[in-house]
Structures are given as C-alpha cells and as structure tokens.
C-alpha cells in the first residue's frame, strides 16, 4: 500500500504544476467558469492547448505508432488534475473517447485524418449521444441514419451537445438499423460541424455557459466517415467510457473550492468577530474537509484499479462520481450558508464574498449529479455490478 505518487509520477506532477504557474494567464484560466474550464472554446484557450501539444502532453498513453508514448494512463490523470486545479482547459474527448476509439476501430483513412490533428491540438470535437428521448436511457437514440448510395442520410435531433457551438467535428451516434435489437442498431459517425443541414441552437444554462441542441436535416455522411463497423456504435461508446476513466471528473475543482472556502473563512469577520470562531462554521468546515478527503480516497481507489490494468474500474468510477458530485454541490451550498445574505451577491458586485465564486458555483454544479450518468444510474450500476442485486428497471 502506498498513497504517494512514485518518484517519476511526482516529478511529472511537479513539472506540470511549475509549467502552469509559469504559463499562468487569467484569460485562459478562470475558476469562475467552474466545470466549463475544461473546454477549449476560445482562441486563447486553443492557443494554450497548442502549447500543451508542443510539450508532448497530448496522447501520452497512445501507442507509439500513432504518435503516443505508451505511458501509463495515470500520467494523463495527473495532467488533468493539474490542469483543472489551475482552471485551464483539459485534455478530453479528442485524446480520450475519440482518439482511443479511432485507434481501436477506425479505418486507416480516419486515423490518418484525425489522430495527428488531435496530437497537435488542431481539432476540437463535440460529442452527440443524448437526445430528447435518450437521456439516462442512452441506448434509446432515435437520430435516423438511412443508408443511401455512397453514405448515410441523417435526420433528427441531438440534445446537450456542450461543445457544438465551437467544435470543428461532431462525433455522433445514430440509428442505422432500427429493426435490430436496440443495442445493435446504432452506429458512430464523424461530421464536420459546419455541414449544411446541421443547425446548432444554443440552450443557455443556469451556469455561466451554454449547451446546445442540434438539428439534422438531410445531413449526408459519406461511407468513409462511418466509424468502425455499422451496428457497433453502442458497444464502442461503452468501451470508450471504460477506457477513459483516467480523464473523467477531476477532483481538483472540488478540492480547490474547499481550499478557497477555508482560506476565506480564516480571514472573514461577522459582527466584528472572526467567522472561524463560530461553532456552526467550524463544524461545517470539518465535515466538508472530511468528505473531501473521502472523495480523494475514492479517486485513489479508481486510479489504482485502472492502473492495475485488469477489468475496467466501472464500479470504482461510479462510486467516485456518485459521492463526489453530491459533495461538490454540498460544498457550494454550505459555502453560501456560511456567507449568509452576502452570499447571494453575484460576481462583479462590490463586496461579493470570494468575488461571487460560490453564488456562481452553486448554480454551475447543479447539473453535476445529472450529466455524465446521473446519480441514480450510478447507484443502479453499483447495486447490480458491485452488490449483485437484481436488475431493478
């Protein structure tokens, strides 16, 4: 048992951290964007990702023949934790879900077209799985992909495509074979985001950022932009989720909020008395700090399970996501309770505590227990696959 990084891992963590301090840029790194800091959605943030690519930090876990370094996934975990700690954009869909799926299942053409661009941070993707009738029930996608001469014709709608308003390419699941069992009738496609017939409609959220719905009207996709085999879409989606445990839901933003709150409580006063002497505040802080340590333990658990290279750490990952997202919300709620009436002041208002960080975070984290597999879905996974309880839905 060892709770420290190995010397090599620690050296890499220190290197990344020092580099991020050196390359600090408030335009690129803004904690107030909360979870959306992970997106590379502005020219400045894309330029930052180019610098990261130049360091050789993209695709480190990929096979050498595709430009990777074949090093352990834990280094990508270390990198993303450091990036999110500094509120910088993270390596995400391109290196993870899309890159790894193309490496395993993509044609030579798709590999040659996309993998070098991912490594050079020259492409941003949007991922389209969710639909109006396919939320937690992801296998229920209805976007129609009809086989036509030389390709497929796509008609229908996607929901919650976070990056659609700035991405270059769309990674989309669609139903090619409606007569087959529903898990075997889905296929994956790559479509340029500016394709005629694709209409992106912004859905403003209660947080700082926007998500989108995307409408497809006779969008033609040539055969060569079908990813892998027709009908294998759902299986590739599931496999990619299992391959991609290292770069999901970083803990640093939550640890950072806890730290920021503690630092503020140490200095704040109410009615001329130090706030930290209030027994209720002390109790709340003790509980938050303890639960944050447990969240770190659960993350250690899934990183170690992933490192062992055995079966995918599905259960560990579900437990981590379940616990951490609800903690994340509670930290924001407790922070506002501690701040009292001044907690309602928004960013930019004079005297907003911690520049209004928690007023914004309270809104921004609302979706964490829903997106990326809701808490209830995680509990179903834990109940069935960890505890061996019967299927319950």
């Amino acid at each position, binding site marked *: *048992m*060892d709770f420290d990084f190995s010397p090599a891992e620690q050296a890499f963590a220190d290197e990344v951290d020092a580099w991020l301090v050196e390359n600090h840029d408030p335009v690129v790194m803004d904690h107030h964007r909360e979870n959306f800091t992970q997106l590379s959605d502005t020219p400045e943030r894309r330029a930052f990702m180019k610098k990261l690519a130049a360091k050789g930090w993209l695709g480190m876990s990929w096979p050498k023949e595709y430009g990777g370094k074949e090093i352990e996934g834990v280094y990508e975990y270390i990198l993303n934790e450091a990036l999110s700690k500094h509120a910088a954009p993270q390596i995400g869909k391109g290196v993870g879900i899309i890159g790894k799926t193309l490496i395993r299942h993509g044609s030579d053409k798709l590999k040659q077209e996309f993998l070098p661009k991912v490594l050079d941070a020259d492409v941003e993707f949007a991922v389209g799985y969710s639909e109006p009738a396919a939320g937690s029930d992801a296998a229920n996608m209805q976007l129609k992909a009809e086989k036509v001469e030389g390709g497929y014709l796509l008609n229908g709608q996607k929901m919650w495509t976070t990056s659609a308003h700035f991405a270059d390419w769309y990674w989309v699941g669609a139903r090619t074979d409606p007569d087959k069992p529903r898990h075997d009738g889905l296929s994956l496609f790559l479509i340029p985001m500016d394709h005629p017939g694709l209409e992106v409609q912004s859905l403003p959220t209660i947080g700082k950022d926007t998500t989108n719905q995307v409408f497809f009207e006779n969008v033609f996709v040539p055969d060569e932009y079908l990813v892998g085999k027709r009908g294998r879409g759902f299986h590739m989606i599931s496999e990619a989720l299992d391959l991609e445990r290292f770069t999901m839901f970083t803990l640093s933003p939550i640890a950072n909020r806890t730290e920021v709150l503690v630092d503020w*409580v140490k200095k704040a006063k109410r009615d001329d008395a130090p706030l930290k002497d209030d027994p209720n505040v002390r109790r709340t802080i003790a509980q938050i700090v303890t639960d944050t*340590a447990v969240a770190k333990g659960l993350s*250690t658990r899934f990183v170690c399970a992933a490192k062992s290279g055995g079966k995918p750490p599905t259960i560990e990952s579900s437990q981590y996501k379940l616990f951490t997202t609800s903690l994340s919300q509670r930290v924001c709620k407790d922070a506002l309770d501690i701040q009292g009436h001044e907690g309602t002041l928004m960013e930019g208002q004079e005297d907003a505590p911690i520049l209004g960080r928690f007023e914004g975070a309270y809104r921004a984290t609302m979706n964490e227990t829903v997106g990326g597999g809701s808490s209830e879905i995680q509990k*179903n996974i834990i*109940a069935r696959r960890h505890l061996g309880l019967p299927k319950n839905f």
Partner: protein
Amino acid sequence: MDLDLTEEQQMVIDMTRGMLAEHSTTAIVRDMEDDPKGYPEALWKQMSELGLNGLLIPEAYGGGGQTLLEGAFVYEELGRAMAPTPHFVSCVMSAGVLLEAGSEDQKQAWLGSEDQKQAWLGRIANGDAILTPAWLEPQRGFGEAGIAISATADGYGFKLNCRKRLVAYASSAARLIVLARTKAGVDLFLVDPRAKGIQMQQLLSQGREAQYQIDFADVKVAAADRIGAPGSGWKTWHKVMLQGVTLLAAQAIGGAARCLEETVVYANQRVQFDKPLGAFQALAHYMADASTRIDGGRVLVHEAAWNHAQGRSIERFGPMAKLFCCETYRETTRVCAQIWGGVAFTIEYDQQMFFRRAKALQLSWWDGPYLEELIAKDVLDK
C-alpha cells in the same frame, strides 16, 4: 500509488477472520452481552496465541512490532465479528500510553517509565494482563477540561478522589490507567483496582460490553506509578487516542460492511410483490449509497494508518477517519434495518446488534462534535 496488500497483510486478515468465525460467532457475542466479565476466555487465548494482542507492541517488549496499518486490517475484522474483547482498552490504549509516555523527552529518561514498560507490555502482549483506562467523568466531556481535579499530593505519592465512568472490562483488569489532575496538569497513574477505597459497579450501556463505574475514595498511589513526566499525561493520551480512533474507524467499517453484506443476501431472497427486495430501486439505492461510503471510508482509514506508519502526523486524518466511518456505520445500520423491515426490530435477528453497536461506537472514544472540533482546529487555527 497502490492499494495492494502484501501477502503477509492478507495472511493476517485471513487468519484473523478464520479465528473469529469460530470464536466470535453471533451466538457467542450475544452470550457476552451484559456479562460481568464480557469476553470469552477461548477468544482471548486465541488472540494471544496468534500474536494479535501483541500486534502493535514492539518486538523488544515481546510484541509483533507491526504498524497501525496492520492494526487497521485486524480491527476491520474485529468490527465485522463484533468481537467482545478487551483488546482495544488493553493492547491499544493501555499499551500505547506506556509506550508513548516519555518518548518525547528521552533525555530525562523519566524514572519508572522503562520499568513500567518491562512490567506490563510483555504481559499485555501475551494476554496475561489486561489493563484499562479510567478516563471519563460524570457531566464532563472528552477534552482536557473533562479531567477534574482529583489527585492531591500525599507524602511521597498521591491520593485519588473521583468517579470514573465507562471503564470497559474493569472487572478483569490487573491495573487501571487513571487520568487525574494534579498540580502539574493531567497525569496518568497505574492503579491496582483492588486497592483500598475503590468501588466498582457494572453499568448497562448501548453496546452491552462490560462497562463499569469506579469510585475512588482516598486511594493511595505511589509517585512511581505515575506514567511519564509530571503534567505530560494529556499530551500522551491525545497521541495514543489518535491511533486508537483510527483503529476504531476500521472497526466501524468492518461492522458496516458485514451488516450490508447480510442485508444484500436478505434483499436477494426476500420476495414482496413477486420481486426480490433488491429489485426495488428505493431499496437498492440505499445499499449502493452505503457501499460507496464504506469503500470510501475504508480508503480513508488506510490512508490515516499508512500515514502514521510513515511517521507522518495523523492529527487530522485520525479524527476524519473516525468521524466519517462511525457515521457510515450508523447510517448503514439504519438503512439496513429499513430493508429488513419489522424483523430488524426484534431481538431474535442479528441486525439489532449492529444497530446498537454502531451508535455506541460513534458516541465513545471521541464523539462527532469533539472530532469535528479537532479537525476544525487543524484546518482553521494553524
């Protein structure tokens, strides 16, 4: 970073679990409830023979010299089995006090310290002697202020006058370790429970282990029976408590894990509305939440114990582990009772045994508010 156990660690776990399956069955645990002695001789003998009683005592004093991490593995098993033993009071707290006292001022080589270690540690390790701390006082708390003035100078020694509560396994104790206040501060004294002026009365309590109230009336204690330098008692006690609560956190995780396992088995068998209980999401989600807290709490305990084994401070980790794991144990027994339904309320079923022990453990050896204040102090006041 890895959470793997060594072969030796796995062996300790398997050996302990195997022994407890025979010597700490729920029938045996039930038998020991409210028993004046409170532990079965056969279990105690087995624990000694397997080296569990000396596990944390250095080899130089006849123990196994293992770290708090191995201790945590064993305590999770003791918790699973609800093992009725004086191990914690004797082999952890009393042995710990004897080991910690004077360890910081080696130069002073406090008179008697080494003699006390020689006299007791070997006998604790082989199970021949049981020592137990007499700590808590009526209407007083877990903190240093909880020790009221009670030891007055008397010639070359002291005279004790106080009432101590919840002294576990006192009826079998060869010595009590009494926390008392002298002019120098809080001191720790080795006291023979058969000494003149001592009266003992068994208390019934929620965990149903052998608990006693002890009255000290002008009990004479020799100066040589003070443990450590004058006024160093509280510091020693606090340091040993940090290790103790880490082990109790492991014990809580063991109890919670077993309670949940038995509930999962039941939820797969018991049918209502033509479905096993586990097929109802309302119930399955209770169990999923409990398992997440148990698995997370276990890592926290291991991290605390590992840090101690590395020589790092557990001033924050120890209290965090007990705070989280005891609440996890309590909450797990609550939702499990909900899943068992009416039968959990009966004495016949074992659920009630976990249910009572979980709350009792949470309230003992530093309760929630005391732990929270320790954590807050470490986070906010440094």
